[in-house]
């Protein structure tokens, strides 16, 4: 497994990224964690529909996001808010989506990120199709698709991997192996040693990386992105990480995993190790942390305010989103509606 930063903040080998970049990645992880914390709180207060925490997976998401060009595409899931944000998805829209508002999916036209996929497995092939379209258009954009360990059991994973390999599309498959598909441990989901090992069945490159190591994830993704951009085709990256919280706010992990396991992963926290690394290098201070925290909270608070201040979605809007032009049936339903 490829790694660069140990859990204690020491490095495996000289980091191929600058201190400044490391600080920036750290700041992003702090901001993402603030979003996660806030969302969990709001969910408990009944202000969100459902929420799937990514705590523990910040390094995998921020590291991968940092490997992309601003016009690259991201096609990811309900658990990928940090990745989506790193690729340009504004917090306020992500938050709006979580309150149960379709307008959260209305991304700025400058941002090439799809609204998070809720179905498991179906979206990876979209990343293949988009990448295919980009190549047909003669552009060199890359498409990164993110999904969980559980998603690799779906037939759609297989078809997406195969299409990407067959048509040599510039697609990067990022599997965040966080140990579980809800309650079902990855050790039971497959008899393969690793998820990365699944790549060879498609004649594809597969790499395994410590997903709690932001530098390693960044470097591995950067390589895959570069290969894809140069016409070298797709790559499967398995980022080994852990879902620290429950699956969603409706789930009770006590039914299927030991606290001791979660505690062990707490020690491998993706933020902690970077803080320690920076601290050793004299690049982390409590004041800077306080500054980051304050700014993060403020940014997230603004996003929440924006999302919650959206006017009530209207009845007509709901019907108007089905087609570019509403059909006669929809127009009639708008007219005659007794809600």
């Amino acid at each position: 497994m490829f790694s660069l930063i140990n859990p204690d903040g020491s490095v495996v080998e000289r980091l191929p990224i600058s201190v400044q970049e490391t600080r920036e990645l750290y700041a992003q992880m702090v901001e993402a964690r603030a979003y996660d914390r806030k969302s969990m709180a709001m969910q408990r207060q009944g202000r969100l529909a459902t929420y799937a925490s990514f705590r523990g997976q910040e390094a995998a998401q921020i590291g991968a996001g940092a490997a992309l060009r601003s016009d690259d595409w991201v096609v990811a899931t309900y658990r990928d808010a940090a990745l989506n944000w790193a690729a340009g998805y504004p917090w306020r829209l992500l938050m709006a989506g979580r309150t149960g508002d379709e307008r959260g999916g209305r991304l700025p036209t400058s941002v090439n990120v799809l609204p998070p996929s809720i179905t498991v497995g179906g979206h990876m092939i979209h990343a293949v199709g988009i990448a295919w379209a980009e190549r047909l258009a003669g552009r060199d954009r890359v498409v990164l698709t993110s999904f969980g360990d559980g998603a690799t059991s779906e037939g759609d994973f297989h078809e997406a991997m195969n299409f990407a390999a067959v048509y040599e599309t510039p697609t990067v498959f990022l599997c965040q192996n966080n140990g579980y598909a809800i309650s079902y441990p990855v050790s039971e989901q497959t008899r393969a040693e690793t998820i990365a090992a699944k790549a060879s069945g498609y004649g594809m490159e597969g790499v395994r990386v410590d997903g709690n190591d932001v530098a390693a994830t960044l470097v591995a993704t950067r390589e895959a992105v570069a290969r894809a951009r140069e016409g070298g085709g797709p790559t499967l990256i398995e980022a080994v990480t852990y879902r620290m919280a429950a699956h969603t706010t409706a789930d009770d992990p006590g039914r299927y995993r030991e606290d001791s396991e979660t505690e062990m992963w707490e020690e491998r926290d993706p933020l902690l190790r970077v803080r320690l690394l920076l601290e050793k290098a004299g690049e982390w201070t409590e004041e800077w942390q306080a500054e980051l925290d304050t700014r993060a909270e403020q940014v997230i608070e603004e996003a929440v305010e924006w999302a919650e201040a959206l006017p009530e979605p209207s009845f007509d809007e709901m019907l108007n989103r089905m087609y570019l032009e509403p059909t006669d049936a929809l127009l009639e339903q708008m007219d005659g509606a007794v809600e």
Partner: protein
Amino acid sequence: MSELTLAQALNRALDTALSSDDRVILLGEDIGRAGGVFRITDGLRQKHGERRVYDTPVAESGIAGAAFGLAVGGMRPVAEIQFMGFSYPAYDQIINHISRIRNRSAHRFSAPLVIRIPYGGGIGAAEHHSESMEAIYAHIPGLKVVVPSTPRDAKGLLLAAIEDPDPVIVLEPIRLYRAVKEEVPDIYYTEDIGPVRLERSGSDVTLISWGAMMKETRRAANALQSQGVSVEVLDVRTLSPLDRSGISSSVKKTGRAVIVHEAPLTGGFGGEVAASIQERCLYELLAPVQRVTGWDTIFPLKRSEAHYLPSVDRIVDAATRTLEG
């Protein structure tokens, strides 16, 4: 007898089936250790063991296909699909294999299995978690489709489905899982797959619904009754095979009908019901059969959910229109 919610009644049905028939096994995502996302299988793995209750990979086509194989191999599998919105990857297995093996083998093989699918909205869930696409299942020859709306029916229909020699889809109304309690027999019993249940007798108008919308339908019946309208209420319970004679004998009597479902209007199963009514009762109809349904839209996210779900008012309104007609 025990006072049970619909969810508990389903759990008891599965428990009873596991106890009384060795061939019964359960499979699905998170149904083992976690007891299912709606806890319908809660405690069953602990009680009946790992060789009766299986967690599966996230692969709905695989679940349905494996259930098919298990059934052909002599078991009585009961598969859970986590939400109706995730049943579509299994659609091919259901229509092309599960529903066809009896025909394809001229009765040599059959697939006596059950697929349980929680369906419907009303809990402010995420996208794909509120679907009501019963029509795509009720159109499949070789398949049966039941939709209980009460705890007692839930247990009896689920046990009947498990006993049935042919494959049965059991649609479970999510928002009724814990909405009401009812006295449910503790013993093993079945409710017949097929007949509608006459829930209330009346002479002015027949309200016809199934599953989740029975709640609003019952309320609308109360509201109408308090306005002096004599309302008959039918809980269809089984979409396939459809009890056309049960429905038409009621409408022949009242001359008026309102069909209520949560699915979008166009192509919804209410079309079948309305078409059948006019085929059999045209000359008795005093007004057009009304349909009160979801709009022709995708089920919306939480903030718009109230815009979508057919309301008691809409049902009352439609009934009133038939009375004026």
